[in-house]
């Protein structure tokens, strides 16, 4: 069998197709490194999202292979060989499957070195996500082989790829539920809304079931000796669709499943003051700790003794429990997997302390909090890549006022802001009242 597959590899377009798919995948993946530099799960999910391109290309590769076979005009010759039909079908199915499998893995491996030294958290779900991607690639190329054999024309391959793209990316949006959308398209449900995102095991199972059904349908279409039996391919599709709908979680259950609680768990330093980051950002702990401890030192007049990462998420909405002794840090990563704005960590953490907990709602005053935080840091609140996100002239004015005051008085006002913010009281005039 190895010898036959070797011959088939050299004879078919599989190697060339694998090379082109790997190149295309590497280009799109490397061009958007910022989307997956957070870690292994992000890489696996982003590559799955790029099935939007890779899967149609695999379909085109399959159809192109069948068209070449048709053009070479050897079907009759091969049919004359006294061998059972499966023996002619299996080698080309195995070869094309192997080619797209290797192409997908090569794309993944080409991206891996970029985050190998920064990414640490590797959940088992990441392997499942990649495995489903492989099943999807195999299903795509087999479907391409089958369609190319049924419609042997030059335009079949590009047309099939366009239709495949529409089915993967545009059509699923017509489905009523997020879970169903993800189940019927392996490229869907892969957008990262936070660094703690994951793909639920059941969703992966549903996607794998549907893709396996498509693969079986492709084999049936490819293997039927007569076009009259092509409708037989609808049977695996029907069974697969039913099983997929039964397996996939929908509604709130689907939304809950998109978050990985283990990735969200805190990992802390051994020494005090304690600094904690989420497991997904564990590798950043050495980078974050000195900055966070410096900020905590500035807060000695308050009750705050610990710094935790702010692991709140929007979808599904979660937020860490508010604690009087803890300041929250926002951690964003750049495209190399390090802190995006290292000098912004302390100001945002301190600003958070002076704005008070999220539950205070409209009473939170960011301008006052910014002025207080930058006074503690002894830096002017200026907009820039490592400072404020946008200019805040009022905060600068308040900050200058604080600078002009005697140190003890300014410190007393800043502590007053903290006390008021903790109790959700209005802090607007605490910094600017007339000097006593």
């Amino acid at each position, binding site marked *: 069998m190895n010898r036959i597959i070797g011959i088939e590899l050299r004879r078919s377009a599989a190697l060339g197709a694998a090379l*082109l798919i790997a190149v*295309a995948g590497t*280009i*799109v993946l490397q*061009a*958007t490194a910022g989307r997956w530099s957070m870690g292994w799960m992000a890489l696996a999910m982003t590559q799955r999202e*790029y099935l*939007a*391109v890779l899967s*149609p*290309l695999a379909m*085109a590769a399959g159809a192109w292979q069948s068209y070449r076979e*048709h*053009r*070479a*005009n050897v079907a009759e010759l091969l049919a004359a060989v006294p061998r059972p039909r499966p023996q002619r079908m299996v080698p080309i199915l195995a070869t094309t499957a192997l080619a797209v499998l290797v192409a997908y893995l090569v794309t993944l491996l080409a991206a891996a070195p970029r985050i190998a030294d920064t990414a640490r958290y590797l959940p088992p779900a990441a392997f499942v996500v990649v495995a489903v991607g492989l099943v999807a690639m195999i299903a795509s190329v087999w479907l391409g082989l089958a369609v190319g054999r049924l419609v042997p*024309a*030059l*335009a079949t*391959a*590009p*047309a099939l*790829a*366009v*239709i495949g*793209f*529409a089915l993967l*990316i*545009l*059509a699923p*949006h*017509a489905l009523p539920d997020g879970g169903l959308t993800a189940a019927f398209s392996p490229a869907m449900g892969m957008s990262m809304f936070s660094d703690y995102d994951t793909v639920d095991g059941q969703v992966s199972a549903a996607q794998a079931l549907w893709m396996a059904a498509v693969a079986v349908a492709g084999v049936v279409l490819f293997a039927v000796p007569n076009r009259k039996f092509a409708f037989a391919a609808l049977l695996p599709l029907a069974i697969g669709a039913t099983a997929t709908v039964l397996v996939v979680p929908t509604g709130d259950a689907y939304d809950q499943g998109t978050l990985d609680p283990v990735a969200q768990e805190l990992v802390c330093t051994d020494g005090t003051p304690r600094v904690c980051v989420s497991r997904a950002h564990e590798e950043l702990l050495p980078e974050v700790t000195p900055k966070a401890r410096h900020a905590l030192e500035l807060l000695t007049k308050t009750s705050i003794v610990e710094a935790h990462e702010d692991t709140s998420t929007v979808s599904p909405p979660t937020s860490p429990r508010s604690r009087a002794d803890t300041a929250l840090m926002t951690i964003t990563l750049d495209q190399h997997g390090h802190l995006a704005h290292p000098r912004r960590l302390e100001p945002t953490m301190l600003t958070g302390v002076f704005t008070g907990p999220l539950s205070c709602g409209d009473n939170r005053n960011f301008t006052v909090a910014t002025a207080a935080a930058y006074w503690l840091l002894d830096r002017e609140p200026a907009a820039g890549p490592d400072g404020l996100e946008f200019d805040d002239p009022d905060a600068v004015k308040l900050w200058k006022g604080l600078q002009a005051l005697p140190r003890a008085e300014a410190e007393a006002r800043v502590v007053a802001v903290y006390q008021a913010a903790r109790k959700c009281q209005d802090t607007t005039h605490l910094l600017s009242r007339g000097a006593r």
Partner: protein
Amino acid sequence: MTGLILYVRSRQVPAALGAAVAGTALAWLPATAFSVKGEVSSTVLALTVLLLVAVATTTLGGPDDTLDRTAARPWGWLRISHLATALGCVLMLLLATLLTGTRFGPFGCAVRDAAGLLGLTALGTATVGTARSWFLPLGWTLGAAAFPGMGTAGEALTWQTQAFDSRPAAVVAAVLTATGTAAYVSRGPRTTAGDLVTEPVRCR
């Protein structure tokens, strides 16, 4: 006239026309069924143009281009009129949708995408052969459809799915049209030994 009819037949133009009409209908029906606003998104437009251009590509080469070349014909004029007609047909089909509720436009975008992709595929035909000429247009357009870029470089690299007033996109499309047309008109479809194997259908 007989020469023209034979040329049209040898390039399988009737089949391609039928396929192009079917392709437009295939894109138009779901767009009508699922979209609410009048104009389709730039992604759908680019994909439809890609589909039509892929069909037009099949007519750029005959069953035996080596044999074709031996004929004393004004090949340059034939090729340039062929490209112009193909572009005209693609645009006519898209124009027809402008009369319906689901419009494949704006027309400027359709012209840019059709001309640019046709130029790219003509360039492919002249350099790697008709059979492989769809590789690059397909990969490039799928990438641009999935991830439209921003900024000058991004707009130039994903020109197929940009707004019709995007200057970098228009420049890239114009360059591709010009080079593709020049290459195809001057060199014609690339001939290889493989082209000597005629289509089985033609043998009958």
